[in-house]
């Protein structure tokens, strides 16, 4: 699975993207967040306040209970702030 990180989530995690093999027992976005949060303090601070974390699965905004599999591209980022003013 490909995971992408943007903005301050990227800064806290310490990388832009990574390839992982989905561990057993990880079937939703929330499972993935829980698993990642145990991979180091960078991940832990990145996912410390989930109210300000958003996720896209295969470039669609998704909920944390969205099911994922090894072929998905999952991106984590803060709420978007585009569009000029």
């Amino acid at each position: 699975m490909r995971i992408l990180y943007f903005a301050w989530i990227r800064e806290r995690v310490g990388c832009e993207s990574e390839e992982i093999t989905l561990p057993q027992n990880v079937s939703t976005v929330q499972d993935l967040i829980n698993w990642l949060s145990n991979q180091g303090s960078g991940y832990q601070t990145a996912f410390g306040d989930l109210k300000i974390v958003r996720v896209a699965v295969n470039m669609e905004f998704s909920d944390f209970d969205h099911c994922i599999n090894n072929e998905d591209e999952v991106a984590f980022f803060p709420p978007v702030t585009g569009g000029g003013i």
Partner: protein
Amino acid sequence: MIRVQLEDFDPGIEIDNLSADNYHIGGISSFVGLVRDMYNDHKLISMTLEHYPKMTEKMLEEIQSEAFKRWSLEGCLIIHRYGQLNPGEKIVMVATASLHRQDSLESCAFLIDWLKTKAPFWKLEHSTECDNGKWVEAKEDDNIATRKWDKIIPNKARDI
């Protein structure tokens, strides 16, 4: 048309291109967003716009399709820049062309509201107060502005 680019653009050329050779068009509405020099009482030196390239294109295409579905449009343009931008520089332009003015005026406002909450862009502000940069937080107001369009079903048959 969708363009996501580092480079600046010329709104006059874009407006001309949108209506070129289509003499049915009666009006073109546009919105150009600029980098402001002041945000929340501190002076901005520059900002960096980060985005999720593949998803940006996809979302802008979806937003554009939604505008074509809701209004009678002869043309639509969304340009969004990314990278480092200084105060006074253009960040974004949306423009729509239609036979009657209300279609283009309403869809232009719709596009910029939707873009703010649906396009995956994040702003890093470099200010006098925080030279390393500070990530801009999303505004609840923008979500309210986006949601108001859920209630609006324009009448395509209107002739104003």
